[in-house]
């Protein structure tokens, strides 16, 4: 699982930096691929090649922000779940929103997990690190091309 990747879908450059910083603290930043929005994430997943570097297969987990311009997190989640290649891909919603409707919608669309971005910096780092550890190393990924 050494080439397992974590796809970070996040439109806020601040949050991108904070997430990468959290991963760096655990020396996991080289596992990260960043999509700066929903559309970019979909391109990465389904039209691979627009990104630097070779396509190294499906990410072990998608860390998906909810509130983004154009294709938001729920749109991306719906597309992931409706495509045979990505139907079982682990998707963790990672958002500032604590709206009940977002939580309900996410699970209805098939989210693997829903995590609120903690406000406190240490708690934030901790949350990112735990998610990465769990999905990259602990979780048994679904068989490829399922």
């Amino acid at each position, binding site marked *: 699982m050494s080439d397992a990747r974590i796809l970070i879908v996040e439109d*806020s450059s601040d949050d991108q930096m904070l997430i990468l910083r959290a991963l760096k603290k655990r020396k996991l930043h080289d596992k990260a691929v960043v999509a700066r929005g929903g559309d970019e994430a979909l391109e990465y997943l389904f039209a691979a090649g627009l990104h630097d570097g070779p396509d190294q297969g499906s990410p072990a987990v998608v860390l998906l922000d909810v509130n983004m311009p154009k294709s938001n997190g729920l749109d991306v989640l719906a597309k992931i779940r409706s495509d045979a290649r990505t139907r079982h891909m682990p998707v963790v919603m990672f958002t500032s929103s604590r709206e009940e409707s977002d939580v309900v919608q996410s699970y209805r669309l098939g989210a693997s997990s829903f995590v609120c971005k903690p406000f406190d910096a240490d708690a934030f780092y901790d949350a990112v690190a735990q998610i990465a550890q769990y999905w990259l190393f602990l979780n048994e990924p679904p068989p490829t091309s399922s």
Partner: protein
Amino acid sequence: MKILLVEDSQSDARLEIEFLGESRTVDFDITRAERLHTAITILDRSRFDAVLLDLSFPHTEGVEAVARLSRRFPNMPIVVLTGADAADLAIQAIRAGAFSTLPKAEADASLLARVLHQAVERERVLEELRRKDQDLQAANASLAELVEKNADAILVLDKEGRILFANEAASRLFGRRLQDLLDVQFGLPGAGDIVTEVEIVRPASQEPGYAEARFVELIWKGTEGYLATLRDITERRRAEETLKTLNAELAEAKIGLERAVAYRTTELEAANAELEAFSYSVSHDLMAPLRSMAGFCQALKEDYGNALDEQAGDYIRRIVAASKRMAELIDDLLLLSRVSRRPLDRDTIDLSVLAGDVLADLKESGSGRDIDVAIAPELTAIGDRTLIRTVLENLLGNALKYSGERSKVRIEVGVVANGGSPAYFVRDNGAGFDMAYADKLFKPFQRLHLESEFAGTGIGLASVARIVQRHGGSVWAEGEPDKGATFFFTLGGEEGR
């Protein structure tokens, strides 16, 4: 049979009495009067069945006597004896009222008796007829009275619809004298119409009106026609029309109202959706940059901590603290917004159990101070469980927070009677407050303590007030500085159910 014999001849009288005495069929009781005036006196005094009057001698009063008797006693049968060849007298006597005449010479015993008998018998029959006629007239009068006094107008029409008869009510209904109604062309109902409405001009006001008319066929004086009964239904029709108009207006008003309600509902839904969108963007758009501020402050401290002096470190701490405080404010505002728009889901709640749960949670997250808790048992209320839990979290949280300086903290939860609905209360022996500021307690962002004394945003009690309001209840507080505070709330009593 009592007979009065008027006979001036003594001998003739004897003869006649003798004749009548021979009769075997009738028993005659005969009284004799010599003169007419004597006869009248006798007839005045007692009843006789017939008078036998002798007019055979020229010197008697003649036919005038018949007339006088007949006038005075109209129902008395009079039989006249005449002389021979007195055909003229006989006819005059009959005209004057005699029943029959007999030539005296021919009047033998049996003839005289038979004629008298017939006269009496005829009178008996006549009397009976007169009585029957009287009965008939009385019955007729009663029937006529029924028709005349009937409140409904009654008309009899011939086959062409001309009025043959009208009663008083008809005269009133049409405002015409009875004789002016007769022969007037009234008209007939359409084929098969038994009940119909006709337009009338009401005589009192000269305004158009309506009458309900019922027609039945009848035979009137031997020919076919119609009996029509009419009743003025103008008032009823007016009342019905007024009712119809009112109903139509009511229906229109209802439609208008429904439209207004639908419009308002749409507006409210739009406003709610806007509020929803607003709180959503508040939670995301305001929180994200705050978190960035706190996050990068942390990064600054971690990465450049060595390069910064103590003053710089303090500034960073203040930035972090300020952003954290703002985040709390935003959270509380979101809570306030949530308690305002969340639909109420009423249920029976065991407040004693709920208060116990909330206190246990609060104590767990707080310091392990010595707290004396007294919760009245079996406090039940009807309300939204989640929202009432928020109320208790705030009130009990405050009670704990503002008792921070006490060595012996005492918190009490109970109920007092408050008019119709029970008032639940949460009491502490903490910092309390000055009653002069009691009205500020439940307003958002209003605080009675410095942030350095007790942390808080001033939203908690505003949320409590909002929740209680939404349940149809009210909230108030009593307190005294350094003695403690008691917060009361009701949940709207009966209508809260």
